[in-house]
């Protein structure tokens, strides 16, 4: 369970998050929408501990632990996963080697033995199916030369491998073609459970047709200015953000 209270964060001295409050219970899907530059990716970065951002105020607890005290890799091992808006390329590092390191470090954190090579490869094969990830991609270097859509698929593949308790999907739908969108969304749904929660950052209602949110929040200017059920996404699709901006008094 994720609880965010009055979260403020800066980058290079500029305040981007200006008091975020959010409660995400196990099994819930929350969508976060909002205009460009409103702070959605920043929120994802801050939750996952990106050192580029500085938290100036507020609290974040995750299953009772103070998330803000943990290193980024510890947060990951606690089960916080981010599907990046812009996944980076790591030349020369094979996906297999990368995932194996990640899986085994997470296992170690939980006091488990490293996975044997054969078990690991079996797991890879199994999880690739979720997002119909091409075999060739899995044998290449991490994201190197992947198309935009392939990168996004690869993110969800990694999510499937790591089985996080909280998945943050930052515009995973952007760059996906119509079929890929369905495949990726189905992958996400297949991994959903009563324990796992999901934060979906998106600009489009389309994705929310597949991954149906319990709540939709509008992030504007570093604050959540409106929260409602899934119908809010439809309303935003239709009317844009101007009426919300007006509501907040701009």
């Amino acid at each position, binding site marked *: 369970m994720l609880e965010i209270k009055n979260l403020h964060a800066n980058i*290079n001295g500029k305040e981007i998050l200006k008091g975020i409050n959010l409660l995400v219970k196990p099994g819930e899907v929350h969508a976060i929408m909002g205009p460009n530059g409103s702070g959605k990716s920043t929120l994802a970065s801050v939750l*996952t*501990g*990106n*050192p*580029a951002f*500085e938290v100036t105020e507020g609290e974040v607890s995750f299953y009772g632990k103070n998330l803000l005290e943990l*290193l*980024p*890799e510890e947060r*990951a*091992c606690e089960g916080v*996963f*981010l599907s*990046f808006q812009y*996944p*980076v390329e*790591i*030349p*020369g*590092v094979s996906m297999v*080697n*990368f*995932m194996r*390191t*990640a*899986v085994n*470090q*997470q296992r170690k*954190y939980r006091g488990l033995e490293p996975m044997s090579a054969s078990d690991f490869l079996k797991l890879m094969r199994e999880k690739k199916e979720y997002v119909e990830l091409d075999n060739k991609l899995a044998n290449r*270097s*991490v994201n190197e030369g992947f198309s935009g859509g392939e990168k996004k698929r690869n993110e969800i593949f*990694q999510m499937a491998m*790591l089985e996080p308790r909280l998945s943050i999907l930052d515009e995973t739908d952007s760059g996906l073609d119509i079929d890929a969108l369905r495949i990726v969304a189905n992958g996400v749904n297949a991994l959903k459970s009563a324990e796992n929660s999901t934060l979906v950052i998106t600009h489009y209602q389309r994705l929310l047709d597949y991954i149906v949110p319990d709540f939709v929040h509008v992030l504007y200017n570093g604050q959540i200015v409106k929260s409602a059920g899934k119908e809010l996404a439809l309303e935003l699709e239709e009317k844009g953000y101007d009426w919300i901006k007006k509501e907040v008094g701009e």
Partner: protein
Amino acid sequence: MADEKDKIINEVTQGEYKYGFTSDIPTDYIPKGLNEDIIRLISSKKNEPEWLLEIRLKAFRHWLTLEMPHWAHLNIPEIDYQSIYYYASPTKKEGPKSLDEVDPELVKTFDKLGIPLHEQKMLSGMAVDAVLDSVSVKTTFKEQLAELGIIFCSFSDAVKDYPELVQKYMGSVVNYTDNFFAALNSAVFSDGSFVYIPKGVRCPMELSTYFRINAINTGQFERTLIIADEDSYVSYLEGCTAPMRDENQLHAAIVEILLHERAEVKYSTVQNWYPGNKEGKGGIYNFVTKRALCKGDYSKISWTQVETGSAITWKYPSCILRGNNSIGEFYSVAVTNNYQQADTGTKMYHIGKNTSSHIVSKGISAGHSQNSYRGLVKVVGKAENARNFSQCDSLLLGDKCGAHTFPYIDVHNQTAIVEHEATTSKISEDQVFYCNQRGIATEDAIGLIVNGYAKEVLNKLPMEFAVEAQKLLQITLEGSVG
């Protein structure tokens, strides 16, 4: 944020040197210093023939006329050549013929270094010549190799047992007049390895020499000579370590390789001499002359080096492509951390027709270190259709280190195609964070990224060495990025 990054860089580069122990092995020294009497003494200790002493003395007299080279991008403190011991050997009665006669302490030392001298314990498929300080203490699998006509022994044994081969080839690739350190080595060299692969023989196992400096204030001056006869093949590995000491120690080696027609030699080095401490105190000065002569048509030399150790490295394994259609390759990863300095690269001399060369250099600098690539591609007038491709990449970890590239291209034939590409990059915080976000701790993330960066070169190493080298890269950079 900048602080955070510095902190991580510091952490990743503060790895400890694992091979810094000293062994308590009774050692014979000869007096310190260098003069003709010392050289005669070394030669007589080794019961050398007169012709070899003559070479030593000529080399010494020539050395006296030379000055230390200063063209490298290195800051080399004054070296007092009179304060060095030029010969130190584990005390023994006679050269050990079987392992039972080798001092158990010595066996233990090499065991600790991961180099078992017991043949039954060894990785199958690798024969080892173990050199401690100035002498070779044990060569394994000699007999099996002899059945194929392959000679693999210490240089000293070669002088005794195959004097005509040694006399014919020694100095034919690297003459004592070549440079300051080559002259010094030729005057005082103590031991090293000798390899001869006969016509048409593919050496069935990796040959490897492991160099270890143990004695204090001692220089190590080994010489390796490899002769690959027509249609032969050998893969040769070289590894080296030294104890941690506050004093700098000098290592000036010569490696000569001669390739006849269609011969192929792969020479791999994992150089891990003690690099000095974090403040730059101590460490090995590594001044090495390595050269291969592709004398025969269609011969091929491939150098692969992973340079992680030494306080100062001065080393340019080169290829003389004299045979028509001969090929020279150079694959290098050089890592420097703390106050290490490296000036390394290669020289490709295209002399025959249709010769080609390929250079891949990956420099990784961290801490306050300086890392330079220096390479020469020379194509002489009659070298028709020469081809060269050079790729020189530098990776910087942190902002206190330096990376430099000095490519020299000297082409005298219009048919030549010479290409050079160079890049400089930093490990990006985004890459590290991406790894972190998957649960990978920063040190391991940097290990992954650096190994990925160096992969093209590491892939050229024989399997067991590649794994070792990957770990070494990570250890060398421990404490340097975050």
